[in-house]
């Protein structure tokens, strides 16, 4: 029980960020994490015995978030993402200087497939190595490397194309 609680405490923010990256909606992301925690509680005895419980939880979060993303409600929300995204709104940004630039980056990321988005997020935000990302996403190592390469390439193209310069 204590072991399970400490695992959850250590990983909860990461689960939320990953869910938010996939569903792009703060309320939906919260629901995803809640569902994952409820399901994981029922399997807590098995989870504490795993080699890498956080990876298992993150994989479950990714799957849960993608399932939720497929629902009509979230699809509608994505179609109207011209509005300021929750992902950005939740962070203490230097809004005046970089809002447009970060908004462009965010919108480009949201256009990527969920798997590719998840890989980029886990590497750039959570600082996970390829093996950890593969465990957390259920993808192969080569898929992880490919998604990362392609995702970064697209971001570079965007930045160069629009000549976005941080003022």
């Amino acid at each position, binding site marked *: 029980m204590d072991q399970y609680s400490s695992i959850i405490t250590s990983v*909860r*923010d990461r*689960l*939320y*960020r990953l869910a*938010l*990256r996939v569903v792009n909606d*703060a*309320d939906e992301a*919260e*629901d995803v*994490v*809640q569902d994952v925690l409820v399901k994981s509680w029922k399997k807590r005895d098995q989870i504490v015995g795993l080699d890498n419980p956080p990876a298992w939880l993150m994989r479950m979060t990714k799957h849960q978030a993608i399932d939720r993303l497929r629902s009509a409600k979230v699809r509608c929300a994505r179609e109207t993402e011209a509005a300021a995204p929750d*992902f*950005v709104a*939740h*962070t*203490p*940004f*230097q809004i005046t200087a*970089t809002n447009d*630039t*970060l908004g462009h*980056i*965010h919108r480009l990321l949201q256009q990527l497939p969920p798997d590719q988005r998840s890989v980029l*997020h886990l590497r*750039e*935000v*959570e*600082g996970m*190595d390829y093996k950890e990302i593969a465990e957390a996403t259920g993808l192969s190592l080569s898929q992880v*490397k490919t998604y*990362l*390469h392609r995702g*970064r*390439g697209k*971001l*570079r193209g965007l*930045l*160069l194309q629009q*000549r*976005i*310069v*941080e003022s």
Partner: protein
Amino acid sequence: MTHTTAKTLLDRYFLGETTLEEEEQLRAYFRAGDIHPDLAPYPPLFSYWEQAGEIVAPKVRRPAIQRRLPVRWLAAVAAAVVMLLCLHTWFNQQPDLSSFPIAEAQPIDWSKYEVTDPEEAYRLLRGALKTASSEINRGPEITIRELGEVRRMLK
């Protein structure tokens, strides 16, 4: 880190060839602020990732999480309750026998029929005695007639 090293690392970064340590060096370079003009387009990207890493899960759970209700169970329970209520109402609607309205016999005020006139009383009494005297022989006559019938049958 020199600008040249940063450029080289950045090229490798976009090819997906950098290690986590090298990526951290790149972040530190862009965070420092002294950036070569050729690398000017890229600070927002690293800034974006850093900001994304600062997001934390809400401490307080939003109230009223919508969960899927066990609709079938609720429908079955509701149907059972309605059925019980109907039965209860039906049986309670059967009227008790004691609840039927019964006409109560009103006491008759015989005093208004009482004969107070002596002549009227005499006339009534005469009529009654006359009737009695004329009818008193009917019983024996019937009996004699019936006995005659029996006797004839026995012969």
